[in-house]
């Protein structure tokens, strides 16, 4: 009898473990539309649709992040009455775009879970991974000296709308499916943007998935940007020719407008003169008739 009870208990435990494992590993079936964003001249924010599934009653956390890029910053210092450049540093390891959309504030998550998901309040984990190097000496900066540059860059990114941590009204349906529209800023560097979604319930990750989208610069903007950077010689000639053509076109255009206005004035004067003459003639005829 005791043996039977033991078997039942172990079976229950096994089932619970299996269920838990299945729940934790469940895919959120994340879809991002469009998966390729073509940014052209005049492109503004792009409407990105993020859909997926989380178990009912879960909170949703979505993270969008692109590849790290190296940026050079200058620090000003006071010399006399002026503010001059004191030093240049290079910051690597920090993504140029980092956005977290969540149904609850990040503080709602337990610390261990936040660390597991790579989500920290006020970008703390990003600050740790960033590498700051003095451009002149090549020496790596640490501590407060490093942090002031990383914080300054993150605050520039925040001003440009590239770094965001915000509550989003995702509202999953009763079956757990959700659909959220996000306006992607136009000033993100071309490349891949990784999108990760987490479903959190009872302090645990109950669903997660990852997908990505590609940002491509196309058309005139891409062509001009690439040419300006890679083919300076040809770009310089093009810039001169476009300017010369633009200047001459403007001259012709305004010349035509000016000529049109002069002709119109002349025509109006002629018509007025003709009307006056006709009036005089009529008066003369009337006088003769009388």
């Amino acid at each position, binding site marked *: 009898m005791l043996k039977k009870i033991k078997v039942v208990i172990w079976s229950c435990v096994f089932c619970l473990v299996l269920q838990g494992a299945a729940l934790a590993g469940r895919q959120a079936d994340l879809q991002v539309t469009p998966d390729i964003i073509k*940014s052209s*001249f*005049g*492109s*503004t924010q792009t409407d990105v649709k993020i859909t997926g599934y989380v178990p009912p009653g879960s909170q949703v956390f979505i993270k969008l992040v692109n590849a790290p890029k190296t*940026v*050079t*910053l*200058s*620090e*000003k*210092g*006071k010399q006399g*009455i*002026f*503010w*001059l*450049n004191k*030093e*240049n540093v290079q910051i690597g390891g920090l993504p140029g775009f980092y956005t977290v959309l969540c149904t609850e504030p990040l503080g709602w998550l337990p610390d261990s879970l936040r660390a597991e998901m790579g989500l920290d309040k006020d970008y703390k984990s990003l600050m740790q991974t960033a590498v700051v190097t003095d*451009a002149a000496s090549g020496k790596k900066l640490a501590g407060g000296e490093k942090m*002031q*540059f990383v914080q*300054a*860059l993150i*605050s*520039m990114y925040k001003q440009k709308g590239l770094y965001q941590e915000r509550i989003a009204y995702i509202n999953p349906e009763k079956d757990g499916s959700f659909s959220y529209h996000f306006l992607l800023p*136009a*000033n993100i560097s071309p490349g891949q943007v990784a999108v990760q979604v987490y479903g959190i319930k009872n302090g645990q990750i109950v669903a997660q998935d990852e997908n990505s989208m590609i940002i491509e*610069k196309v058309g*005139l*903007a*891409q062509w*001009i*940007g690439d040419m*300006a*950077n890679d083919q*300076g*010689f040809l*770009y*310089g*000639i*093009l*810039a*001169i020719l*476009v*300017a*010369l053509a*633009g*200047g*001459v076109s*403007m*001259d012709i255009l*305004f010349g035509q*407008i000016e000529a049109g206005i002069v002709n119109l004035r002349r025509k109006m004067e002629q018509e007025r003169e003709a009307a006056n003459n006709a009036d005089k003639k009529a008066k003369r005829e009337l006088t003769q008739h009388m």
Partner: protein
Amino acid sequence: MNILFPVAGVNLNIMLVFGLGGIVGLLSGLFGVGGGFLLTPLLMMAGVPPAVAAASDSNQIVAASISGTMAHGRVGNVDWKLGLIMVAGGLAGGTAGTQLVHFLRAQGNFEFVLKVTYVIMLLVIGSSMFLESIRTIFKKQAAGRKQRVKLFALLPGKKYFPVSGVECPVYALFGLGLLVGILSALMGVGGGFIMLPVLIYMVGMPTAVAVGTSLITVLFTAVSVTFSQSLVNHTVDIMLAMILLLGSSMGAQIGVRVGRLLKGEQLRVIFSLIVLAVMIKLMHDLVVPGGSMITLAGGGN
């Protein structure tokens, strides 16, 4: 409508850029000045990186000066012999100036040097224009204006230029072109505001020939600077330059017509005050710390 300018790397409202070009064109048409010296600071205030603002302004000057150059060329208002010496100086100065910009960007002090140069230049232009206008209003300008020193004629190694009917040393003209070229690369200005007073008062050229000859130098120097900036610094934004051109062309047409209806001296006082206000804003940025002491290196982009 916001658009992303591909070289400047900033998202700006197209009407703002068009409007800035329009305002500068309007002032240019009203007061008969080039206006390049106001456009670069205004673009910087709008958020365009300083290096891109100056280089794109030069590109816009190519477009803005071509029609004037053609018009003066057709009526024979150009002293080609004298002008080509200044053009040679302008090309050398433009190339040297572009290298100077490259060096200053690498040092991280381009923005500082640009603002200091602008403060000095706007102070000189604004205050001299203000004083001249005040003198004109009180009808005291006549004595000062008629005295032409012809300083260049006092220098050794003179050469006679028959079209202008003046004597002037070649090195002084080359030096003038060189200065204009350096300032053009550094600040994105045409340089007419320096050349015209020098050619009229210090060289003694007739005003119409001085205007035509100065325009030739402005055009070729701006062409050279646009090319060098594209090659060395990659800071010319064609989109930005063309939208500015569209705005400034329209603004200038309106300005010329409005200017005919208004009294010049009073307007020049207002214009000089605008120039001085821009100077004070730049001076304020230099001596009073802004939001952050840490900025993107190299004047942006």
